[in-house]
C-alpha cells in the first residue's frame, strides 16, 4: 500500500464513523458556558476578557448594522481557533484542512455581505467596483478587475485558511520524518529538532490565520455596508 504524505489528511474511520465528527465536536467540549455564577473562576475570566476585547476590537469601526453580526463572527472565530490549535496535538485531525469545510463557511457569509450591501444601497454597492479618481481610459478595465476581485473573495478566504493549515501540517510531517531518519547521525538531529520546534511555533501562527479570516470577512462587510 503506497503511503503518501497526504494520507494524514484523509479522515480515518472507525466502525464507519469518521474522526472528523469527533474533531468537529471538540470545540463544544472545551468551551463550557456557565450561566449560574456571578463571579467566575480563572479560566472563564480569561475567556471572558479575551472574547470581550476581541469583540470590541473588531466591531468598533462598524456601525450599528454591523453589530448584528457580532455573535456570528465571534463564535466563528472561537470555533476556528479551537479547531486549528487542537490540530497541533499528536494524532488529532484538523477539519479545517478540508476545503469542504472552509469553503462552506466562507461562501455563505461572503454572499450574505454582498446581498446585504445590494439590498440596503445598491448604487453604493455597485460604486465599489470603481475607485475614485481613476483615469477615464482605465475605467472599463478597472471595473472588470474589481468585479473579479470581489467574486474571488470566498475562494480566497477558503483556500487561504485551508492552504495555510495543510502546508503547516505537511511541513511538520516532513521535518519529523527527517529527524527520525537521521537519528543515527547525531549533530544533524539536533539542528533539525530545533528547526522542528521553531516550525511548530510558527505553526501556532495558525492562530493568526483565524485572525486573518475574520478580519477579511469583516472588512468586506464593513466596506459594503457603511463606507
Amino acid at each position, binding site marked *: 500500500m503506497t503511503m503518501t504524505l497526504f494520507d494524514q489528511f484523509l479522515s480515518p474511520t*472507525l466502525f464507519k464513523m469518521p*474522526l472528523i465528527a469527533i474533531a468537529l465536536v471538540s470545540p463544544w467540549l472545551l468551551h463550557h458556558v*456557565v450561566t449560574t455564577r456571578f463571579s467566575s473562576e480563572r479560566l472563564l475570566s480569561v475567556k471572558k476578557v479575551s472574547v470581550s476585547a476581541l469583540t470590541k476590537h473588531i466591531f468598533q469601526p462598524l456601525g450599528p448594522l454591523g453589530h448584528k453580526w457580532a455573535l456570528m463572527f465571534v463564535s466563528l472565530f472561537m470555533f476556528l481557533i479551537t479547531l486549528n490549535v487542537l490540530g497541533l496535538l499528536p494524532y488529532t485531525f484538523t477539519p479545517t484542512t478540508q476545503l469542504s469545510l472552509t469553503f462552506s463557511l466562507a461562501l455563505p457569509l461572503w454572499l450574505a455581505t454582498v446581498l446585504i450591501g445590494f439590498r440596503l444601497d445598491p448604487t453604493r454597492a455597485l460604486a465599489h467596483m470603481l475607485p475614485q479618481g481613476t483615469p477615464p481610459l482605465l475605467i472599463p478595465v478597472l471595473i472588470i478587475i474589481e468585479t473579479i476581485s470581489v467574486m474571488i473573495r470566498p475562494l480566497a478566504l477558503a483556500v487561504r485558511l485551508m492552504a495555510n493549515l495543510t502546508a503547516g501540517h505537511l511541513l511538520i510531517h516532513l521535518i519529523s520524518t527527517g529527524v527520525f531518519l537521521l537519528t543515527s547521525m547525531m549533530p544533524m538531529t539536533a539542528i533539525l529538532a530545533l528547526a522542528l520546534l521553531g516550525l511548530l511555533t510558527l505553526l501556532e501562527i495558525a492562530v493568526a490565520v483565524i485572525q486573518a479570516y475574520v478580519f477579511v470577512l469583516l472588512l468586506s462587510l464593513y466596506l459594503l455596508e457603511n463606507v
Partner: protein
Amino acid sequence: MADRPVPVAEKRLMEVKLGELGTWLGRRDYSPNGIVSMFRRAHTRYYNKYIGVKKGGIGGIAMLLAGYVVISYVWSYDHLKHDRWRKHH
C-alpha cells in the same frame, strides 16, 4: 437505615446493586435527547469538579486534551499501523 424506595432507572450508577444492573441499563433514556443530556450531565460534572474551581490549574483541561489525543489515536489506529517499521505489511 431504611431509605425511601427509589425506582431502579433513576438511581445513580454507584447506588445500583449488581443484580439490578441489567434493568438499570435497559431503562435509561436512549433517545437522542437522552443521549445528549447524558453527555451534557457528564461534561457539567467534570467541569464543576476539575475546571470550574477558584484556583483551577492546567490539570482539568490537560486531562480533557489527553483523552482527546487517546481517542484520536484509537480512532486512527487502522490508518496509522502502516507507519511503523514493518518487514511484512
